[in-house]
């Protein structure tokens, strides 16, 4: 329960709230995606940081080392990064299509256009 013992969690939380703030506060869709990927890196830290053992080494077996960090979170996050970039590409593709359909990637302008469309009598 010391400050040093929980510092890694607090860094994680700072990154998470920074990402969350960008996603909520900014209307630009590309900026929102940047915020989402920052949020995602906080999840990487959340997984990796508890697996570290001070004095341990990377989990590659060698004769001269006895203590290794936990390999399981590494595996999970390794695949998560690649899946993350694939879904990021999907999001960017959606942004590009939205830009072509609405001529804008600002959330407010898109909502305005939607409202003016729905208020028009058919």
């Amino acid at each position, binding site marked *: 329960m010391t400050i040093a013992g*929980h510092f890694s969690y607090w860094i994680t939380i*700072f990154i998470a709230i920074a990402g969350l703030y960008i996603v909520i506060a900014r*209307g630009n869709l590309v900026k929102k995606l940047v915020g989402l990927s920052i949020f995602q*890196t906080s999840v990487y*830290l959340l997984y990796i940081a508890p697996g570290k053992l001070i004095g341990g080494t990377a989990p590659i077996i060698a004769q001269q080392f006895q203590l290794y960090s936990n390999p399981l979170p590494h595996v999970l996050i390794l695949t998560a990064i690649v899946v993350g970039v*694939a879904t990021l*590409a999907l999001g960017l593709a959606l942004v590009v299509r939205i830009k072509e359909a609405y001529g804008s990637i600002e959330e407010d302008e898109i909502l305005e256009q939607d409202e003016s469309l729905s208020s028009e009598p058919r």
Partner: protein
Amino acid sequence: MMAVVTVAIAVRRNLFAVVILGGIYSFLMATVLVALDAVDVAMTEASVGAGISTVLFLSALFLAKSEEMKPLHKPFLPLVVAVATGAVLAYGTLGLPAFSDPNAPIHQHVAPRYIQEGERETGVPNIVTAVLASYRGYDTLGETTVVFTAGVGVIALLRRLRQRTRGDKR
């Protein structure tokens, strides 16, 4: 360092600068991951986060415009929401084990078996590779399928109009 870059990303309105800062952020994250002994993950983060996703963001920015609009809403409400969420999360960490505690539950369950038996059973010294491809082969099959599906999704989203514009030219 990372805090400065993160705040800069949040504040800058020029999306081009934001994307380049995102690349810097990814490299910093990779160094942090090396310090946490996750060399495989650091390698992936450096090549994916700083390489591929920067290129993807830049090509998407080329298609959309690269200057962000001035936000219409006041930034205080989102800030309050974010900070409140963070406070709740920080309160939650009080119950978690301290950093590098060898008795934490994460080090007790399956990881010791991977470390002790992994090389003998698979003949692969890098345990991350052994777990990725062998012990958790189903997971990785699923992840590969997700990557495949995302690729197919992007193809479905971006291919059609391109062919139509080409058809208009002819």
